[in-house]
């Protein structure tokens, strides 16, 4: 393991730059250091204007996603030592496919709108709502959606998704996984309402199933799996609409049976 490494960091300020450029910084490599520690070292000691987001430093708040040598990564969970061989460099850029506000900070307002479109809240028919106490849910029922509830909204999957790159309107992997998290929840009755958004070409059918989202997910949420489940359920619903006399069978909400 080398004891120093050069970091090439994308810099961009809309107040002074027409386009991003790279600046190089040599940083010490310590065994415990993650890429984020090196960024903090630069900001504290070399250039206080280096701009990036971070908070928890334990891989759960979702703030510090960046491209590290071309791969979307949580920089608080990516160790310097894994790059510090043979005079390698580390190239750090903002997450791909997002507008850049400054340096390594992306604009995620569009992503936040997409999350809301998935209607990520528990829906019940108005005559079927508890106002006190709790719904019952067995551990097996919990297991059916638990994986999809693990998303930390870090947006790495959007930076990995080629469809997001081509079509910014595509609702994208995390939002689709979140919709499926509620659709698969035994307490939820809102799948039909979510389908209105998600059966749209910008929704689930936009996905060409490249599977990159699942590969880069730091929390093993498997958005690609969620999208596939959703497509199958939607097709089944559509097929059923031909065999059930009054159209959709109310009990066959996507993914909920």
């Amino acid at each position, binding site marked *: 393991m080398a004891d120093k490494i050069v970091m090439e960091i994308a810099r961009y300020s809309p*107040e002074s730059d027409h386009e991003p450029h790279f600046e190089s910084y040599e940083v010490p490599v310590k065994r415990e250091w993650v890429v984020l520690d090196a960024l903090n070292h630069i900001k504290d000691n070399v250039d*206080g*204007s280096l*701009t990036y987001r971070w*908070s928890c430093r*334990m891989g759960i708040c979702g703030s510090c996603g960046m491209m590290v040598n071309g791969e979307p990564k949580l920089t608080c969970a990516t160790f310097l030592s894994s790059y510090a061989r043979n005079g390698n460099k580390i190239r750090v850029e903002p997450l791909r496919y997002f507008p850049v506000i400054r*340096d390594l900070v992306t604009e995620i307002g569009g992503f936040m709108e997409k999350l809301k479109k998935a209607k990520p809240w528990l829906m019940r028919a108005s005559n079927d709502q508890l106002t*006190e106490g709790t719904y*019952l849910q067995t*551990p097996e029922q919990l297991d059916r959606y638990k994986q999809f509830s693990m998303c930390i909204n870090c947006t790495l999957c959007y930076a990995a998704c080629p469809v997001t790159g081509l079509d910014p309107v595509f609702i994208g992997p995390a939002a689709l996984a979140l919709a499926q998290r509620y659709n698969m929840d035994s307490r939820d009755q809102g799948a039909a309402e979510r389908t209105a958004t998600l059966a749209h070409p910008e929704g689930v059918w936009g996905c060409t199933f490249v599977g990159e989202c699942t590969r880069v997910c730091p929390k093993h949420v498997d958005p690609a799996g969620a999208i596939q489940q959703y497509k199958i359920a939607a097709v089944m619903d559509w097929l059923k609409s031909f065999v059930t006399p009054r159209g959709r069978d109310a009990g066959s909400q996507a993914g909920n049976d």
Partner: protein
Amino acid sequence: MATSPLQPWGESVEASSHDVLLIGGGAAGLRAAIAAAEVNPKLNIAVVSKVYPMRSHTVSAEGGAAGVAKPDDSLDEHAYDTISGGDWLSDQDAVEAFVAEAPQELAQLERWGCPWNREPDGHIAVRAFGGMKKMRTWFAADKTGFHMLHTLFQTTLKYQPISRYDEWFVTKLLVDDGVVRGVVAIELMSGRIQAILAKAVILCTGGCGRVFPFTTNANIKSGDGMALAFRAGAPLKDMEFVQYHPTGLPFTGILITEAARAEGGYMLNKDGYRYLQDYNLGKPEPKPVLRCMELGPRDRLSQAFVHEHHKGRTMETPYGPVVHLDLRHLGEKLINAKLPFVRELCQKYQSIDPVRELIPVRPVVHYMMGGVSTDINGATPLHGLYAAGEVACVSLNGANRLGSNSLPECLVFGNRAGKAAAEFASSHGLGNGAVMAQAADEESRLKSEFLHKTGGRERIATIRTEMQSTVEQSVGIYREEASLRAGLHKMMELQERYQDITLDDRSHTFNTELESALELGFMLDVAQSMVASAMHRTESRGAHQRTDFAMRNDEKFLAHSLLYRNFDGSARVEYSPVTITRWPPGERVYGQHAQHPDAKAVQRVS
């Protein structure tokens, strides 16, 4: 967002206005926002946060949330555990309200979709926790805070009256004639400085662990709300009470949840000996016993670590002395089912697998018992200003918080503060021109002291590092007069040097260096308040241990310290009595034979 630029006073500052304004979008802030929206759907409610709400530090909470849930438990037992855990400094009316409402709040989270762990029959599962005599801690694996925060955030999206200012940094509370009328904030993306006026403001900014060098707290935990309130004239209560959690990973300070011990983990010294048996915490048994040994309270466990260290029975690492947390006997299956995040964090950050290896741990700053003084509805002494969650001191946690009481505290007192603020806002108006003049002054200050300043010499990181080591040396696990006095002097020096800081970054767009400078200013005020409060409390109680005053002194200090800022910028300490309802001060006893006065309590929850 209801931003209607108002400039009737000829000032340069723009303004928007709301009925209720939340500062902070973690569990307390989001719960308060929903509560306010439900009190009066016509209210215009906004959440200002320096991060997107789902990044808030609630996300890092792991172990669980306490609320009586099973027939063998009672509200009185939860109350007694909380009061004795807090070494009788808790206000017992707040505790009684808390234990009664916590189960309802946790059930409400369930109805909003929180994925709580379940019994095989579908009912809520609970686990043991430190200092709790019954199993009453609801949990979502070991990512309870993460699931609670995302459930709350996702639920707020369906409430139309709730708008957000994401990534806005609040620099000042606007106060006119003793009434809080809003804030001045910087929109990080543009650098725009704006007044956000409101009829009621609720601080939900969380804690201040970053004033210490070694903490579980996220980078954003810089005590902003405490300093904002203090500068505006509200008192800070019980700031000498800082919680060290006994099990943090060395170097990173990443928390290994108390649930690891609740599931049966052992604390071992360098000889492989379960050393807690030497510290009045009971006898070791193979299985966990409630309120015993590894399930003792956090203050006592962290203090025991210091004694083990002095006896030479800890292990040295490049990042300080450690002991071991042993989970190996729990087995891979249980660890994967109940403690998956612990395993993930150990593998990722410590390169060890707790299924087969010992986890090195040491005490780490985790939680601030003190905060902005409030009543049991979250109201501060300043009209129109409320506070809830870690930023506030109700006081529920007294001299030492029990693990798994802080998440439900955010819900119970977030709900109460949200309702109280909504009612206040329904019967009060907005401020007048005086607050806009203040906002213009604040904008000038931000420009002259930071963005346009010339000639500063001090780097932010230098002052921050010196502050952190000063705080650790003066208000660490054990304190004494000489180091506290030295700490106060050093803090005054740092306050002076802070006036001489310089920024590399003078741009408007997403200026995180300006943000860091302002956070450092907040932290200096908070750190100073801790040292001052600790110096005046010449007794030992809970997490405040004075080597020069080793005993609890109820005659003099069964009282909350209240630190006020004087008009000239100096501070003064006053004391107010603790509210005792049904549990007179007693001895804190842990271990198998400890009597629990409410063990046969009749109040049951089905």
